[in-house]
Each structure stands twice: as structure tokens, then as C-alpha cells.
């Protein structure tokens, strides 16, 4: 097929449809509103449900109910809405409810600037839930990524039963590009797994070989329990410290131990001194800067991280090893650089951040590389 001219938010909606999304609820907020608009255009006509919630807390609440009833569910907002989602995100993480949450980031803090971009929510997405349980965060660079990573996000939510965030940005979500989505290799669609024997089903039963519980929907033949309280395998409150501890560690390890299975990234390896690490829309400027550096006869390496959380530690260790110098560039005052510094604790990691509503330019990145 020939290319279409679409923005990142529209591609998110199209990716959701491709992944089998059956339920969307959202509350209008710039710059995420056009995802709600697009879902409203796509989902009801495909026998799904798309509603506008009375607020953000309700919107994600609707999604959690629908997801527990067996529908793949998604919601979309920006920073102020993520703040309101927080308690429900904790519920989804702790009670293993699959959901895709799109954060089209805008300049903060607080209500900030509705129509200016930033990547200011990167640590917030990871740590914005009570209890500190890990989540998955994927960061698109362009419209193509918005489509593909949304499909991956649904797959990961289904497979690992957890909230999966798409950390988009006004400058991706509301920027239009020519792109031929039909020419892309789309991953195989994954669905949550029902138990082999539903008669003995326990909603949070796991075993040596089964780290993620099987799923049966609310509304099916077998009564199913879901709870936000600290629970045992049967879905009832437990006070048994051993059971609680095992469950908490499992929630952590089921994602952190598996990250190599879903470590998405782009790289431009070069026989060079300097490696630039970045993510999101800044990767576009970094790509242009890398081209200009090569043309100037002093190439740089580039690593674009697309799985931000859990941190792909092996990737970062392996890819930085050949370079003498590591420079992290991000559209905030320094967030993901803390992870890179933690992993490369024996090395000097340089940083450039900017949060003023403008994109970081290729020229600025070149100046940073040149140490100016």
C-alpha cells in the first residue's frame, strides 16, 4: 500500500486495533486527546467499546473492569492524568491486570504547557505507584514506532499481566509523518492464557514453571476474584508474610528477569570514541547529528533505547563497552541518566538535558559531543 499521512497518536490507535484492543476509555487532555478521537472512530465500528470517562481516575477504572472481563484495554493521557491514574496503576501492577497506558508527555511540572513537549515523566512512570512494583515502559521515536510499540505493549501486557506504558511525547503524538504501516513487520499477536483445567482455577496460582498466573475473565463460567488487597493465590486477603514476600518478589522478578526478551532499541555502531545514548523524539535529532558527524569525518555511535523500564542493563553494558566516552541526552533535567550512571558506576557518564518546550536540535547535540 502507499503511505498514509498520520500523527503518532493516530498510529497508536491503529496499533491498538491491530493488537486486538476491545476497550478504550479516556478523558480529554492535550496532547493525548487525538488518541481518544481516533479510538472513537475505529473501535465502536469494530464492535469494541470506547467511552469518555468523567475524569481520569474513572477512565482507567473502566479499563481495569473491562480488562478483568477479558477485553484488551487501553487508556491515554498526559502527565497530569498519569498523576490521577496513580492509585489505579498500583492496582493494575499489584493485581496483575493487563492494561496499556499511553502517556503523551507534555512540558511540566503540573499542568505546565499543554502544547509543548518534554520527556519529564520517565522516572514518574516507573515509580508513580505505591509499593514500587516494576512496570514496563516503551518509548517510541516516530509514527512507525507508535504503531509497532503499541502492538508490543499489548502483547507484553497480555503475556506478563501488568501495566505497560507507551512514553510518547507531544512532538511525536501530534507530529504527522508519511508512513506506510502496511509495509511493517508486525509481531504475532499474544493473548492472555487461560488455564488448562478451569475447575481447579485459582486466580493468582503460580508454580515453579509458571511465573504469571493463568487468566479467566470476570463474567465467564467460573467465578473469578480480583482484589486490590494483599492477596494469596485464591484472591482473598492474606497476612502470611511468606506468601506476601513470595508474591512481591514474583511481581518484581517476572518483569526484571525477562527484560532481555523485550529489549527494543536502535543502534548505529561506529568505530568511534563517543557513544550518544538517548530515547524518544530526541533520537531523531541525535540521528541527524550522527549523520553530520560522519560527514565531517568524526563519527559517533548512537544507542536509542526503546525499552526504558525495566532498565535493559545488559544492553547498556554491552553497547557502551567499546566506547571511551558515553553521553546521555534527554528532554528533561536528567532522569534516565541516573539509570545509565547506576549501571556504569565505574565510568564517567556525561549528560545534556533541556526542558524549555523546544526540541533538542542536532546542532546542540553536536556541540555537546564537541564538548563546547
Amino acid at each position, binding site marked *: 500500500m502507499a*503511505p498514509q499521512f498520520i500523527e503518532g497518536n493516530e498510529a497508536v490507535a*491503529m496499533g491498538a486495533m491491530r493488537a486486538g484492543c476491545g476497550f478504550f476509555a479516556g478523558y480529554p487532555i492535550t496532547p493525548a486527546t487525538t488518541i481518544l478521537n481516533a479510538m472513537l472512530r475505529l473501535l465502536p465500528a469494530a464492535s469494541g467499546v470506547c467511552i469518555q470517562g468523567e475524569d481520569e481516575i474513572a477512565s482507567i477504572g*473502566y479499563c481495569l473492569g473491562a480488562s478483568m472481563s477479558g477485553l484488551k484495554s487501553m487508556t491515554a493521557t498526559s502527565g497530569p492524568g498519569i498523576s490521577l491514574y496513580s492509585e489505579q496503576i498500583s492496582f493494575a501492577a499489584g493485581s496483575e491486570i493487563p492494561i496499556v497506558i499511553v502517556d503523551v508527555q507534555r512540558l511540566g511540572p503540573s499542568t505546565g504547557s499543554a502544547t509543548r513537549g518534554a520527556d519529564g515523566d520517565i522516572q514518574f512512570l516507573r515509580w508513580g505507584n505505591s509499593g514500587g512494583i516494576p512496570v514496563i515502559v516503551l518509548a517510541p521515536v516516530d509514527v512507525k514506532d507508535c504503531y509497532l510499540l503499541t502492538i508490543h505493549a499489548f502483547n507484553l501486557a497480555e503475556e506478563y499481566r501488568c501495566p505497560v506504558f507507551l512514553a510518547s511525547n507531544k512532538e511525536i503524538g501530534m*507530529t504527522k509523518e508519511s508512513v506506510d504501516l502496511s509495509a511493517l513487520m508486525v509481531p504475532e499477536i499474544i493473548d492472555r492464557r487461560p488455564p488448562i483445567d478451569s475447575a481447579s482455577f485459582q486466580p493468582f496460582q503460580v508454580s515453579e514453571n509458571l511465573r504469571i498466573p493463568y487468566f479467566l475473565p470476570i463474567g465467564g463460567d467460573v*467465578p473469578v*476474584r480480583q482484589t*486490590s488487597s494483599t492477596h494469596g493465590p485464591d484472591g482473598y486477603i492474606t497476612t502470611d508474610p511468606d506468601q506476601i514476600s513470595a508474591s512481591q518478589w514474583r511481581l518484581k522478578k517476572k518483569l526484571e528477569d525477562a527484560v532481555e526478551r523485550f529489549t527494543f532499541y536502535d543502534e548505529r555502531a561506529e568505530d568511534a570514541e563517543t557513544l550518544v545514548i538517548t530515547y524518544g523524539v530526541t533520537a531523531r535529532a541525535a540521528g541527524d547529528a550522527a549523520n553530520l558527524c560522519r560527514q565531517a569525518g568524526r563519527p559517533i555511535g548512537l544507542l536509542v533505547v526503546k525499552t526504558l523500564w525495566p532498565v535493559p542493563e545488559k544492553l547498556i553494558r554491552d553497547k557502551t563497552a567499546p566506547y571511551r566516552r558515553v553521553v546521555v541526552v534527554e528532554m528533561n533535567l536528567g532522569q534516565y541518566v541516573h539509570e545509565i550512571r547506576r549501571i556504569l558506576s565505574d565510568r564517567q557518564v556525561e549528560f545534556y538535558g533541556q526542558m524549555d518546550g523546544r526540541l533538542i*536540535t542536532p546542532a546542540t547535540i553536536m556541540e555537546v559531543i564537541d564538548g563546547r
Partner: protein
Amino acid sequence: MADSLLNKDRPPVFCPGCSHDRITGALDKAFRKLGLPGNRIAIVSDIGCSGLFDTFFHTHALHGLHGRALTYAAGIKLARPQLQVVVTMGDGGQGIGGAHLLAACRRNLNLTLLVLNNFNFGMTGGQFSVTTPPEARVSSGFLNRLERPLDICRVAHSAGAAYVKRCSSYQSGLADEIAEAIAFDGFALLDIWGICPGRYIRQNPLTPKIIAEKMATMPPADGIVEENQRREYGSLYRQAAGEQTFSQPESIAQRFQPPSNGRHEILLLGDAGQRIISAGEVLCLAGMSAGLQATQKNEYNITVLRGPSISEVILSNEPIGFTSLARPDIVIALSREGVERRQSLFADLQPQTLILKSLDTNIPPCAGATQALDFKKLGVKPADRALAALAVLAKNGTIIDTDMLRVALRLRFSEKILASVLELVDRVQSRS
């Protein structure tokens, strides 16, 4: 009657004398009367003593965050229309979840809300809730004396609830009341008054008799609310959704060769209402009709009909990375506010940059070649200025030509508007 759905392994754990015990029994009896098996029911609860209900029954169950039960319940009901969804919340939940109560009343999705109203926060130590009378002595000190309590039934009535009834936990026939509410096809609310022996009655006299007397003084809330009768939301939704048609963004096939190769950056500076964003999109579609790649980054204030409007367009036969423009090849300058927003960029413009500006827009001194457009003389309205500038650009023919522009306009505009924009292009090109 059908079998009891009570969970024998998990008997109620309420304080001795708690009215919630009676409601638990009545709810089970209501399920039995309706002949509902456990897998046809979902009990949704949230925080507080009312949040224990989901554990007493062999049904589907979801227990979530304080005040949010109605949100989960709505998601479940929309996903599973055949399920009977019963929500238990306390009077506390009506306060923290007030927006969800109003939404549920307005929407009329077929949910049953049982408000277990005992006039205080029992679980956290007897603080005042939205229904605590001002004269009550509760653990919030003097604070409840300063506020008026809410009549949940009146709120629900005025918010559009189709079924609202005030009940006592102690009245005979409570199970029938619950069964009737569950059987109602729409949002049904029972405000069930009761006694919290653990907290409330320690300092406040409250007996079944006092509850009955007090209820008799309240405005009537006796089930079906005639003025709010209408079709149930779920069935309405499914009907309306079934009439929607699926539309995908159009694919843009290449049908022309581009007038020139390489990368072109075009900056449109104007005001809201000049169709700057639409013109930027038309430019991209024109480029795509000649097989070029395109990006469009926009900037405007959140006040839609006022303020500057800026579109940054890149057309290229190479993949496009960075989407903002530092040194545009073309600047279309149509308003003072738009120019001011990008003031600093003019100093860096190259001599080969073409600036198409409206006669009444001043630009800072720069090296670019300027062509002033007299829109008044051309008979171009403010809303058509940006499209008129594209007509001039197409006539110029370096980046797009008129065939490309016409195809793009056909892609972008509906039949109704198309004739006028095509005429605009003809008019501007013949006179400029």
C-alpha cells in the same frame, strides 16, 4: 428459591450488631429469589466495611480502591452485558467517588448500587462522611458541625438516576427491595441506612426505630423515578456503535515526479483562523503525491481561535529525522504574531530562501528574497491566506507544482469546500 450463594468458608466478620450483617443476608436472599447462579453475578466493592461484601459470596468479585467501585463496575458491565453487576459502597465512598456517582446516574448503565449508609467512616475510626448529621458526635471533632449532610437519594434523583430508593437495614422485605433494584433495567440505587455499633452509636443514639422515624421525615425516594425513565445505556451504546462506520486514513499513491530532488523545509507563520495547519497538511499531501516523504510539526496556543499558528513542514526524498526547522527554504509569513514567535530565525536565513509574506506583515531584516502578496487586491479572505500562498508557491514550481497542489486539495477537503479552494487557487495564480 435457588441455593444460597453465601461462602460458607468465609462467614461475615462484622462487629456484633452491625447492620451490614442483615444486608448480607438480604442480598443473598435477593439473589436466590431472582434465581441467579454465582457466575451470572459480579459483586464490585471498594474500601471500608462495605468493601468486605465481595468475599462473602460465591460470585465473580472485584474489590478495588476507595470510591472507585462504580468505575470498575461500568467497565465490567460494558464488557459483559449479560452479567448482573451489584456494587456495594459506603457513605464514605459517595464522598470520595462523587463524580462517579453522578456519572452513573446520568449514564443509566444497568448497575445496582447498594449504599451501606451508616453515617460515618467505621473502618478508620468514626470520622464524619458526607451523610453525617451536623449534630452527631464523631471523631472528626467539630468539623461535621460546620457542614451540611448530603441526601444521596436527592442527589441521585437530580443527577438522572432512573431508580432511587431509601431503605432501612431493619425493614421487613429488604431482600425484595434489593431484588427489585437488581431486576430494574438501568441504574438503580438503594440508600440503605444502618447502624455502626463499633463507632457511631458509642456517642450517638441510633436505633432501628429512630432510623424509621428519621426516614419518614425525608423527601420521598421510592423506586422508579418517572421523570428519569429512559433506555438503558448499554443497549443504547451497542445500537449507536453498530451504526458507526470504520474509517482509515487515506493512502497517498505517487502519481507525479517531484519538481526537484533533495530536502525542502517550509515554515508557515500565521494566526489561528488562517488555516495554517490545514495548509501545512496540504503541502505534505502534495509532496507525497510526488513520492516525497513528509513531516509536519505544528505549534499553536491552546486558545484555538486566537494567537499564533505555526506549521513546520519538511518534504524530502530521504528519510526525515529531526522535524523542527532551523534554516527553512521557504518562509510563508502571514501575521505579526506568527513572525514574532520565530523572530530569532530570520537573521540566519540564506539569500536563496524565498519569503512569501502578506503585504501587511512586517518581517525582521534578513538575507532572504521577499515576495509581498497583496491579499486585498487578490480578493483573499484571512481564512484563505495560507492556501493562497500555496497557490503562489505552486505557480513558482520549485517544490510543488499546481497538479500536486490540486490533488492534495482533493485529498484534504470535502466536496463542499473543494470547489471554493480550487477556485481560489485559479484566481490567485491568474492574478499574481
